[in-house]
């Protein structure tokens, strides 16, 4: 039994024209208040709430609430609110793109059919590309194009999968699927591309650092986590996801270790943490799915803080390179405090949020006797120190720069609403860690979890301390260098360059040549006709009567000659030698 309620995602969509048209002050009020109002509305909605409509013969369900969807939607709304406050002074174009993107992501968390999922999926791809293009870096347009290309590829796979699924009599309802045919394989591939799975893990680190400081807040929270949500909803327990997730976890660690761009370090850290979630989806039991839900929420919160910190450093200094940053802690004390809290949360230090979420994922690996996966996840948990944990904060805020940069004088801490944007998520990182039972009750499946046992706390320090010691001793090795790292996007770029030069450009050259030939011959033909039949053409002139008589006589004479040649008498006459 469902009753009609307006979907929260549609409310956010409705705000987009208002953001574009209302006076700036009113639009800023929307940025500051609407996501919180929608959050309250989301939790007020009854479980039976629904919203259905018919479109092109399909029954679309745009409101279908689940416990997992509510938590994902809440995290999206908090990130949208924080991102909106951080984008307070940005252009309306960025606000509209961000809200369209957030509305599409929010709609996915509570849509109940595959057709609607595809519509919102594609809308998200386009809006997020516009958001990438808000950056003002030299490589931004090309990075946006690569991002769009990857996501449209994912969209095409998803569309193919959904079409195949429906053609084979599958239900359009969003529900658990099994990887038994090509259609479900295509749907899974479409989801995995958005999650940053191999071989497309590169797009996260390629696109996000090219966006504007505030746009990355939305980007880091929405795309990959939406993919995790649909994976958990449709493909929980699909074993292939375990190795895929482990690859992502390791990939994120290895690439972040020597990276110079601090926002790219955070992007690699996203892939690393999404890897944890994908492994948990692959395990697929109740503990694992609780772990995925809580870890996604927690990850969005602490990553929002870290991305805002990186954005503040970028705004203050004009640089996001580790070689040009450092020593900002004294200039940005509030940002530094929040960054330390978020970094502690990312490492899973007791009393912070990740401590209670990551333990659920490790517990599910233990319960399923996945020894290899458990060992790799423990090692990757420790290695978070090398990316979002300590290295990011060290490079951005605490490292003594090689030479005192000039911009330090202008660097100022966040003020006003931007303090709320970074402070509230940092506070939530602590609140979730300090009162875990409050949040455990909101999870999709009821279970009894007790993270604050002496064994678990000491075990967590045993995981983190070797990594911290290693980081401390290997600091010179981890110092930033002004280099970039090649990724699998090298292949894509080469392929694009090759297809551009040897495909598109050559085809264009041939087409142009062909056009030239056709045009030249057309012009020549026209000139010929004009010369003969034009107003002054040879056949259009008036001729003298004498000349006409001469020509007529000549034509008649030639006729007589030809006729005579045919006649036998003349033939004989010629042979007789006259």
């Amino acid at each position, binding site marked *: 039994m469902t009753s009609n309620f307006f979907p929260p995602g549609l409310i956010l969509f409705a705000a987009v024209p208002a953001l574009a048209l209302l006076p700036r002050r009113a639009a800023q009020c929307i940025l500051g208040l609407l996501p919180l109002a929608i959050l309250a509305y989301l939790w007020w909605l009854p479980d039976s709430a629904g919203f259905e409509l018919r479109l092109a013969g399909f029954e679309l369900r745009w409101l279908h609430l689940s416990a997992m969807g509510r938590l994902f939607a809440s995290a999206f709304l908090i990130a949208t609110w924080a991102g909106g406050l951080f984008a307070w002074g940005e252009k309306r174009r960025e606000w509209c793109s961000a809200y369209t993107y957030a509305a599409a992501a929010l709609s996915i968390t509570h849509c109940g059919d595959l057709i609607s999922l595809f519509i919102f999926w594609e809308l998200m791809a386009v809006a997020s590309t516009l958001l990438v293009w808000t950056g003002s870096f*030299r490589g931004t347009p090309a990075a946006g194009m690569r991002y769009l290309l990857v996501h449209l590829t994912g969209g095409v796979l998803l569309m193919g999968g959904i079409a195949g699924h429906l053609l084979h009599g599958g239900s359009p309802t969003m529900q658990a699927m099994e990887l038994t045919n090509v259609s479900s394989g295509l749907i899974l591939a479409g989801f995995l591309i958005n999650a940053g799975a191999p071989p497309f893990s590169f797009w996260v680190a390629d696109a996000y650092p090219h966006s504007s400081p505030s746009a990355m807040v939305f980007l880091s929270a929405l795309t990959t986590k939406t993919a995790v949500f649909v994976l958990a909803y449709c493909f929980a327990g699909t074993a292939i996801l375990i190795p895929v997730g482990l690859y992502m976890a390791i990939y994120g660690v290895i690439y972040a270790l020597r990276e110079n761009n601090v926002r790219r370090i955070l992007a690699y850290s996203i892939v690393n943490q999404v890897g944890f979630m994908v492994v948990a989806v692959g395990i697929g039991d109740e503990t694992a799915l609780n772990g995925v839900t809580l870890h996604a929420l927690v990850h969005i919160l602490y990553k929002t803080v870290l991305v805002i910190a990186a954005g503040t450093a970028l705004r203050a200094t004009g640089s996001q390179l580790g070689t040009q940053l450092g020593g900002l802690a004294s200039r940005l004390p509030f940002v530094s405090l929040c960054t330390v809290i978020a970094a502690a949360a990312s490492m899973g230090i007791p009393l912070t949020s990740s401590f209670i979420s990551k333990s659920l994922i490790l517990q599910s690996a233990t319960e399923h006797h996945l020894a290899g996966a458990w*060992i790799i996840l423990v*090692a990757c948990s420790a290695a978070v120190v090398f990316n979002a944990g300590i290295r990011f904060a060290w490079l951005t805020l605490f490292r003594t720069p090689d030479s005192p940069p000039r911009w330090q004088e202008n660097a100022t801490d966040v003020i006003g609403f931007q303090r709320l944007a970074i402070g509230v998520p940092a506070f939530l990182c602590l609140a979730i860690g300090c009162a875990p039972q409050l949040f455990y009750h909101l999870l999709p499946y009821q279970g009894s979890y007790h993270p604050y046992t002496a*064994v678990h706390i000491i075990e967590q*320090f*045993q995981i983190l301390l070797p990594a911290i010691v290693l980081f*401390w001793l290997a600091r010179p090795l981890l110092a930033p260098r002004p280099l970039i790292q090649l990724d699998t996007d090298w292949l894509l770029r080469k392929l694009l360059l090759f297809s551009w030069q040897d495909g598109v450009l050559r085809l264009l050259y041939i087409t142009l040549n062909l056009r030239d030939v056709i045009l030249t011959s057309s012009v020549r033909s026209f000139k010929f006709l004009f010369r003969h039949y034009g107003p002054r053409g040879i056949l259009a002139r008036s001729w003298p009567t004498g000349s006409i008589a001469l020509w007529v006589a000549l034509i008649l004479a030639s006729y007589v000659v030809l006729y005579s040649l045919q006649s036998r008498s003349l033939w004989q006459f010629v042979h007789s030698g006259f």
Partner: protein
Amino acid sequence: MNRLSSRTVTRLLLGILLLTLLAEPWLHHHTPLSASPFALVLLISGFGCLIFLAVACIISPLISRREDYYDQ
């Protein structure tokens, strides 16, 4: 002074590490492994991070390029 503080931090970190190691005999780890060797989690974390560092250092010269690599 800087060097001294660096040494102090190193000693402090190693001290805490030693403390967690001393607590090991009283800990009962819940792991998926059939046998649980002494300081299992510490070993996995330490060796894991060492391997990550080594792999990053080995592949770094192969995949690192100048910042203007793609511009050319």
